[in-house]
């Protein structure tokens, strides 16, 4: 079985915690984590609900493999209706929290209502209770983590929490666990704050059992780990350079957007790259990168642990927490905080990244929001009166650091930046400068230079997101096969295949990064051995497609239409100038109709009756 078959339902309005049996029919149709939690959400929540009202729910969910000995099996997801977008939100995180939930005996926790006072949830195996968070409110995520460890006196306690921006209504607040890992996108942390829920602290000692066929499972898991170890990407590339190795690759192929996506190509890319993180600096002879790090059960270990140069301006006179090693830059953060803002100061970006972790901010949306603000500042729409005196030009590292501190403290330009780029640009009359889809900002790949990822962005169910269908693997990296980045032929099929497979992986408890080495023929046997029922490759892909369509259905019912499957005009009409992708715009119109057709949707982007029937929706 692998599922614990138990759900914890926490009614914050009443202050109650109750156990329920997991709906095993749904588990058979939606597997776990992203898929199963979304099924619960769409069954229990009105799609038109205000995301920040007590009527919205927030679900923390593990997958059936979470906590098992499968490689990377420590994942959990936070599922809700997102405040940044108004669409379905599902943010996935690693670290050690998911494993702890599972060891405490829970497949998922459903939070509903709103507590009259700030609380945190304490879980110790089957015991769950809400406790006062009066002392925790107003604290950073790092402070809360330390305080809860001091209260519970157990280093093995795992904490998920929100920082100050979430409390202040920042639309893209993250849920931070284990201090450096984040369910980062779409504002899931903002929903948590709206419920007066500051943190979840969990300790589980029950073990993870219920493996359907242990011998088969051990064999499948062992085979999978061997594939990861033998593969050059997961065995060598990711541990050594992390995701940040992409900075020079994507810049090299003309796909790195810069300066609020005005153009592709950033001269400072090499200064903030994975390779640069290895270079000894003058002050102390040490590199930015201290070590790599792995989440629970991971045999890849792509995580970055970094220090800021002790002589760097950003940390002078600041707290001790910035003077030592902490969660370092990953590629998407380095792009948004760096290339998109024009800042190529590695230490400034590392410090800002620390702040994003410390106070629970999605660095992608944050960096892109600052980039939009910088463009408006340079255009004269924003002045120093708006910025609190900050000279918010592109490339100004000091200004960027000051703006980030303002966001965290809620002062100066902070409340404006907390809006996200869509609301910020609308507020100042320049909506066209928000580089977003459905209100969520783009990650680090320019859809003008890489066509398929543009279609994925436009159709992603949680707004612009690379992790909904990472066609970069094929279009740039040649995994599993190389496709031409500037072609549109075959891209609808490629996007659909990536989106469906990703939905399944996100529902299993495994990390998506395994798919740089694993295909579904490596993943399905592990699920099949762990879970009851038939989990063939075919069924896994069918479940992935069902999940994708369920999410789409929710968004349509929430009011999204085909008109929302679009890219900003800049990316459709303003061609890249210079470099290998000179003259390119995204040709979304060449791909979208075919995509709808193979999805089984009508011209309005809605599921047809036939599709509902085929997928049992």
């Amino acid at each position, binding site marked *: 079985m692998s599922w614990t078959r138990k759900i914890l339902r926490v009614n914050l309005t009443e202050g109650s915690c109750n156990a329920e049996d997991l709906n095993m029919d749904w588990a058979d149709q939606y597997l776990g984590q992203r898929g199963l939690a979304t099924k619960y959400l769409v069954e229990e929540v009105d799609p038109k609900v205000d995301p920040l009202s007590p009527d919205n729910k927030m679900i923390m969910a593990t997958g059936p493999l979470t906590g098992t000995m499968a490689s990377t099996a420590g994942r959990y997801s936070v599922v809700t209706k997102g405040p940044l977008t108004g669409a379905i939100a599902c943010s996935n995180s690693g670290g050690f929290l998911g494993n702890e939930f599972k060891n405490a005996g829970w497949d998922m926790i459903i939070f509903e209502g709103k507590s009259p006072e700030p609380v945190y949830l304490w879980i110790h195996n089957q015991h769950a209770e809400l406790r006062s968070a009066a002392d925790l409110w107003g604290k950073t995520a790092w402070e809360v983590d330390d305080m809860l460890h001091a209260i519970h006196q157990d280093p093995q306690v795992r904490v998920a929490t929100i920082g100050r921006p979430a409390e202040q209504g920042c639309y893209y607040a993250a849920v931070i666990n284990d201090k450096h890992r984040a369910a980062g996108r779409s504002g899931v942390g903002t929903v948590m704050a709206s419920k007066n829920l500051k943190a979840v602290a969990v300790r589980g000692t029950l073990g993870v059992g219920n493996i359907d066929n242990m011998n088969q499972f051990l064999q499948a898991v062992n085979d999978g780990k061997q594939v990861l170890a033998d593969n050059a990407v997961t065995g060598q*590339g990711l541990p050594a350079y992390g*995701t940040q*190795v992409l900075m020079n690759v994507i810049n*090299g*192929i003309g796909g790195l957007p810069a300066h609020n996506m005005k153009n592709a190509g950033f001269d400072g890319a090499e200064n903030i790259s*994975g390779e640069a993180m290895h270079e000894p600096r003058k002050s102390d002879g040490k590199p930015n990168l201290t070590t790599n790090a792995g989440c629970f059960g991971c045999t890849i270990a792509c995580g970055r642990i970094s220090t800021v140069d002790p002589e760097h301006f950003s940390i002078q006179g600041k707290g001790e927490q910035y003077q030592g090693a902490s969660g370092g830059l990953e*590629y998407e953060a380095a792009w948004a905080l760096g290339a998109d803002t024009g800042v190529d100061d590695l230490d400034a970006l590392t410090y800002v990244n620390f702040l994003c972790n410390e106070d629970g901010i999605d660095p992608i949306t944050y960096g892109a929001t600052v980039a939009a603000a910088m463009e408006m500042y340079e255009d004269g729409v924003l002045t120093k009166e708006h910025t609190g005196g900050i000279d918010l030009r592109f490339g100004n590292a000091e200004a960027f650091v000051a703006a980030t501190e303002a966001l965290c403290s809620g002062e100066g330009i902070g409340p404006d930046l907390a809006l996200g780029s869509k609301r910020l640009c609308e507020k100042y009359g320049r909506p066209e400068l928000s580089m977003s889809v459905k209100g969520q900002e783009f990650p680090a790949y320019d859809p003008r230079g890489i066509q398929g990822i543009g279609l994925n962005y436009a159709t992603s169910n949680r707004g612009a997101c690379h992790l909904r269908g990472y066609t*970069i693997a094929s279009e740039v*990296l*040649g995994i599993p096969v190389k496709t031409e980045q500037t072609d549109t032929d075959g891209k609808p099929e490629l996007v659909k295949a990536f989106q469906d497979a990703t939905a399944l992986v996100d529902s299993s408890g495994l990390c998506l990064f395994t798919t740089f080495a694993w295909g579904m023929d490596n993943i399905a046997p592990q699920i099949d051995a762990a879970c009851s029922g038939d989990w063939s490759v075919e069924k896994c892909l069918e479940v992935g497609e069902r999940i994708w369509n369920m999410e789409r259905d929710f968004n349509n019912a929430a009011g999204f239409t085909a008109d929302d499957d679009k890219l900003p005009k800049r990316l459709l009409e303003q061609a890249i100038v210079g470099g290998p992708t000179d003259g390119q715009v995204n040709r979304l119109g060449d791909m979208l109709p075919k995509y709808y057709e193979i999805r089984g949707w009508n011209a309005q982007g809605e599921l047809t009756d036939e599709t509902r029937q085929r997928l049992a929706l």
Partner: protein
Amino acid sequence: MKMHLELYASLMEKLPPGNARFRRTLDVDEGTSVQQLIERFRITDEEAHIVLVNGHFVCGEDRSQRILETEDVVSIWPPVAGG
């Protein structure tokens, strides 16, 4: 003929001495192919996972036919990924 070679990530250790992070300017004979350049620096086919000439991808089968021209920039990465 002058051209430029860029080696990234773990391939950086195969760069000849020089000051720039990734790039070296080289003299190569007229008619040198991309594949011959790769072999000159003892980079295996498996290591030469992403090969760009002036930012454009050159797949394994085309590397012997692609003849270098003056001022070409050849960039090479081992198997890498991220996201």
